[in-house]
């Protein structure tokens, strides 16, 4: 991915504000408000919005590339979800509120209408930063048609965390939505868009741990020389780098596949490949870092824990490989190559 001004801005900003202290505090429940304010001030969360809704006309792949930078810095903020919420709201013609936003697929929720009066109820699980979001955007079916509902309240929050101790709350909802509109997107679309964000974040995280691991192999000496001088270690680092390269390609595909049109097979390939690289990469980074990388004091875990979380969120390898496999099989053996090149 070419580094744009947006990417440079994100790199500078996240590099300055996301310190190990901020990451540790986030694990203990402190929402990094100052970091969010700086991000919002720079408008980094607005890139997917049309100019009419407050966006600034940047190409979608450039806008999404900042998620790779977020991944590099283990950004403990709902940047991906805020971008996706804005995408859902604006594509349904609804205004996008300020502040960190999050999204919920309709699973477990019932959105219903009584005349002109809407109501939504049920339990939504695994909601990223549900605890901290200013509003929740739900995508739910009403009489077979997909609808977007915006809620700024009317739900109670149960504390839940993912493996990286990022909030993934359970929300018990009984609310009158602030706004509802038909959506052009299905639940699968939203899941795929979410998967694309994770493919980008995984690639950034792998870039980071590859750099950290390479540096560690140069710095750490045993048997009288840096461990990076040992061929066995060199080959492990090279393998980590090649998985990172694959994840970067996956991220590039993901960045081109939400807008202008949502390309599900491409996202399936990107998320599945990125997720596979995440697992292999995290394991290699730990192996090369040795015992120190297993401590809380060392910062490696902030990244590897996120790799483990993100590879599962919005669908892991099995789900997206199966999707892509069915797509390829349906096209048939003789159409395999044209189908792959069309991805």
């Amino acid at each position, binding site marked *: *991915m*070419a580094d744009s001004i947006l990417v440079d801005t994100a790199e500078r900003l996240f590099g300055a504000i996301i310190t190990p202290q901020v990451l540790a505090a986030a694990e203990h429940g402190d929402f990094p408000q100052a970091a969010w304010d700086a991000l919002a001030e720079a408008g980094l969360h607005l890139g997917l919005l049309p100019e009419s809704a407050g966006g600034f006309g940047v190409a979608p*792949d450039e806008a999404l590339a900042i998620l790779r930078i977020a991944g590099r810095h283990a950004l403990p903020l709902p940047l991906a979800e805020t971008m996706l919420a804005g995408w859902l709201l604006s594509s349904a013609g609804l205004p996008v509120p300020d502040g960190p936003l999050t999204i919920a697929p309709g699973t477990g929720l019932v959105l219903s209408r009584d005349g002109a009066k809407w109501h939504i109820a049920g339990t939504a699980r695994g909601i990223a930063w549900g605890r901290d979001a200013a509003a929740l955007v739900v995508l739910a079916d009403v009489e077979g048609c997909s609808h977007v509902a915006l809620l700024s309240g009317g739900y109670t929050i149960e504390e839940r965390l993912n493996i990286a101790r990022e909030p993934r709350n359970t929300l018990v909802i009984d609310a009158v939505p602030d706004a509802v509109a038909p959506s052009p997107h299905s639940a699968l679309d939203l899941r795929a868009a979410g998967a694309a964000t994770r493919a980008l974040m995984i690639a950034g995280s792998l*870039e980071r741990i*590859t750099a950290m691991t*390479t540096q560690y*192999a*140069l710095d750490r000496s045993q048997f009288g020389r840096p461990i*990076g*001088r040992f*061929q066995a*270690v*060199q*080959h492990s*680092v*090279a*393998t980590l*780098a*090649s998985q*990172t*390269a*694959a994840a*970067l*390609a*996956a991220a*590039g*595909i993901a960045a*081109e596949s939400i807008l202008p049109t949502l390309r599900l097979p*491409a996202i*399936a*390939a*990107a998320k*599945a*490949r990125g997720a*596979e690289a995440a697992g292999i990469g995290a394991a290699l980074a730990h192996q090369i870092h040795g015992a120190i990388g297993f401590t809380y004091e060392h910062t490696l875990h902030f990244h590897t824990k996120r790799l483990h979380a993100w590879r599962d969120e919005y669908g892991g*390898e*099995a789900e*997206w*490989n*199966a*999707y*892509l*496999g*069915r*797509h*390829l*099989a*349906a096209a*048939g*053996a*003789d159409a*395999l*190559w*044209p189908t*792959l*090149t069309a*991805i």
Partner: protein
Amino acid sequence: MSALTFPPPPASDTAEALRADVRAFLAAELADVPATKRMESWSGFDPEFSRKLGARGWIGMTFPTQYGGHGCSNLERYVVIEELLAAGAPVVGHWISDRQSGPSILRFGTEAQKRFFIPKIVAGECFFCIGMSEPNSGSDLASVRTRATKVDGGWLINGTKLWTSQAHQAHYMILFCRSSGTPDDRQNGTSQFLVDMKSTKGMAIRPVHAMTGEHHFNEIHFQDAFIPDDALLGDEGQGWHQVTSELAYERSGPERFLSSFILLVETLRVLGPAPPERAAIAIGRLGAHLVTLRRLSRSVAGMLEAGENPATQASLVKDLGALLEQEIPDIARAIIAIDPPTEATERFAEVLAYTTLHAPSFSLRGGTREILRGIIARGLGLR
């Protein structure tokens, strides 16, 4: 440029427009070629096909027009070669000429050499082989012992080359050997020569059969074999530099991840349009690997087109590509049982057997996995 710089592959409408032409040509040309032939991938030899490809303008595409080339971009060439490989076209005849020998002659050759060789290569009528490895010089190429000794009007070659693919069917060899000093001088004192394989005296070609019994490799003995002065390619003593300057082209192309592609096609054929979940997952995974590798490989093609030297990235592509090529037969057999044999799996089993028995070579030829990972480690700053 860092080792992990992979810019988005440049979009090329010209290249994409070409794709339909190539597909139509291949559909017609290969209509009667069965999977059990296509499976040979870029080891398949058919001089008639090479000539037809030359007539279509699809060999030497990037070579300058003044020598009969077509002045196209690397991206256009990329489309043609990936389509050829995906279809299992028999390309080995001209493959080395198009990928390496032609570009080397254009870069280092004399005007007379360019005028002599390039038009023949472009026509698909001049096949090259590469004389690099020796019995005691495999990955350690700098230890070569084959020697060119200066004599009046030319050079006398003495020594043995080994693993030379297609030497028995090639018209010329690009020979890498020592032209001064001793093997202890390593990279220094090496040169490249263009050796006529059809008329050079003092040269004996002996087949080295692969474990399948096939004849691709050869051992070539040179005993006071005389080659004229104008056989020297580039500068005497610059052989190492010349050989290594083309490695990014050799290691990043689609032939580094499509060698088992025909087996994947036949796997899908046996599975049918609605495979069980476990098979769908396996097929999808291979598809995801192919799609991402193709993007990396095209990204390297874009960097080459821009005049950069992405040697580390090329090694990353080849390392990942060989892993995928070697996984395909393992995964195919895990999702389709070939025992007991059935009519539906007969052809699949034959393609599986061929690919299984060729798979070990995928991480040996063109730089072993160990060599590639060393290059990647160097690119990362570890050596």
